[in-house]
């Protein structure tokens, strides 16, 4: 590196990270497509076997119903989690002492691992020894056993798990809004709710989109909470598509077919996040931000 000064690092500084990322992240993305054209059962090295998995996937009712269920959880999760996270986030952005104390408690679930959360709720809702079975009113419900109720149960546990994270996003964004805007609005006579809808909400657009994309992609691919909480049951009542992929592969040893499902999920997730960012004009917004 001559002319422009000797301090500048060469491209070699990137090589270790790119190699590592290439082998353990990029290569798997390519391999999953390859695997979707094989009959790999988990032993030996997979060899190509044609498009059988793909014609099968088109006719598989289980795939279709698990995708529909995934969409149900996605919509339910977004509708429930977004308002809660936004309200708490904006509320927690205030610098009052009591808010600081309370929000430090609100954020606690973020410390627990997925396994801890799923197993804790499993004990809380256990049909024989659970907490809910020993409380008045709640004891009449079979939260994990009823095929309809279980959907709301799972949605609730996911809410409990993920709302703190999204709250953090909204909190830091809301703290970035200049106080002077609110002061001006107060002088103009705008009340609290008017201020929320005409100042806070529009200025949180960027965060709303980030949070939405994370939720959408997450609900298409994440299944570990459900795996531990219900195992997809009762029956197939909570067997969302990524969980179906996992079970097909690691329980049924049909890794080729499971890979085909994984490809569908990857495309689905990427398409969703692209659609959201395009539809909301996210790109325009981020370039505006850079300009300012």
């Amino acid at each position, binding site marked *: 590196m001559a002319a422009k000064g000797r301090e500048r690092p060469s491209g070699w500084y990137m090589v270790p990270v790119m190699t590592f990322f290439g082998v*353990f992240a990029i290569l798997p993305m390519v*391999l999953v497509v390859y695997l979707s054209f094989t009959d790999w059962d988990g032993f030996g090295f997979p060899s190509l076997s044609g498009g059988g998995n793909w014609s099968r996937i088109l006719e598989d009712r289980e795939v279709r119903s698990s995708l529909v269920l995934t969409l149900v959880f996605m919509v339910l999760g977004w509708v429930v989690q977004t308002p809660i996270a936004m309200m708490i986030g904006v509320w927690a952005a205030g610098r009052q002492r009591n808010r600081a104390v309370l929000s430090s408690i609100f954020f606690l679930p973020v410390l627990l*691992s997925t396994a801890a959360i799923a197993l804790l709720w*499993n004990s809380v809702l256990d049909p024989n*020894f659970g907490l809910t079975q020993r409380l008045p009113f709640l004891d009449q419900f079979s939260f994990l056993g009823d095929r309809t109720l279980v959907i709301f149960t799972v949605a609730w546990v996911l809410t409990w798990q993920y709302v703190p994270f999204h709250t953090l996003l909204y909190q830091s964004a809301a703290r970035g809004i200049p106080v002077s805007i609110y002061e001006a609005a107060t002088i103009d006579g705008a009340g609290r709710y008017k201020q929320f809808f005409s100042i806070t909400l529009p200025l949180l657009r960027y965060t709303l989109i980030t949070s939405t994309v994370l939720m959408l*992609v997450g609900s298409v691919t994440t299944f570990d909470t459900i795996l531990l909480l219900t195992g997809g049951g009762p029956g197939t009542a909570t067997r969302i598509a990524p969980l179906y992929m996992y079970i097909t592969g690691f329980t049924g040893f049909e890794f080729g077919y499971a890979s085909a499902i994984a490809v569908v999920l990857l495309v689905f997730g990427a398409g969703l996040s692209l659609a959201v960012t395009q539809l909301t004009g996210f790109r325009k917004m981020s370039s505006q931000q850079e300009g300012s």
Partner: protein
Amino acid sequence: MSITQSGTPMATPPASAGPAASVIGPKRRKVGREKPNYLAGVLSVIWLVLVLVPLYFMVSGSFRTRQEYLRDNPLKLPSAPTLENYESVFTGGFGRYFLNNIIVTVGTVAIVVALVVPAAYAVARNASPMVQRGFSLMLIGLAVPAQAVIIPVYLLINQLQLYDTLLAIILPTAAFALPVAMLVMTNSLRDIPAELYEAQTLDGAGPLQTLRNLVLPLAKPAITTVSVFTAMGAWNGFLFPLVLTQSREQRTLTLGLQTFSSQFGTNVPGLLAAITLSLLPIFFVYLFGRRYLLGGLTAGFGK
């Protein structure tokens, strides 16, 4: 940011207390007009209960004997607190899982930091298209969740003959933490003024010396953020250990919890003790460095 005037939206003071408090209190940002936000107060108390009850159930349950757990009201304080559940958790192999978790977490963080600091330095100071394209490629990785490629990762680890080792967990965990780590680290190094880099050149320092004398000291906050983010992911990771290991000796905490839950069966207090223990280290970090922890968690996704 609906700001309440009087500090306590939870309390329900008489209507006159709001303005009165703002007169007595120190200098406020907004004077007079606002009443306490009762709606926010009520909702936040409801949410508080929903968050705390399961956690209280977990901690208090872990100190109950099994008989007491089955007999008593689970919301009462334990009448005769006991440590026997914690003992049974440790005799159940928890110490080993704990150690494995520490190895996995430390190993993952070490790999990520060691790889990311020099690479981010190159991205911040080397405008060549190859370097910048490599960076863009990594950022695409932000959108690819590990779960969706768990099968090829399983194949890869098998082919590398790493199946059922701690390294099998460490390598992919580190790889999927890289995009966020690169993003955070690069942004931080780009914020270092160009003059400081140029001063290094004037002093006759090459890239390696600049990395040591300038980049490393100034990147400390970013390294903390990246470490926290990576460590949380590694400590709490479930899927890679589940799929890439099988023997008892290689089991991590999260996997251990799952084993406890099937092993203990009806021993709910035992399971609750195990869950509580698995949470403790992170809880202590949270107590003493909440800002770092929460900042690290949302790293790369903040505004």
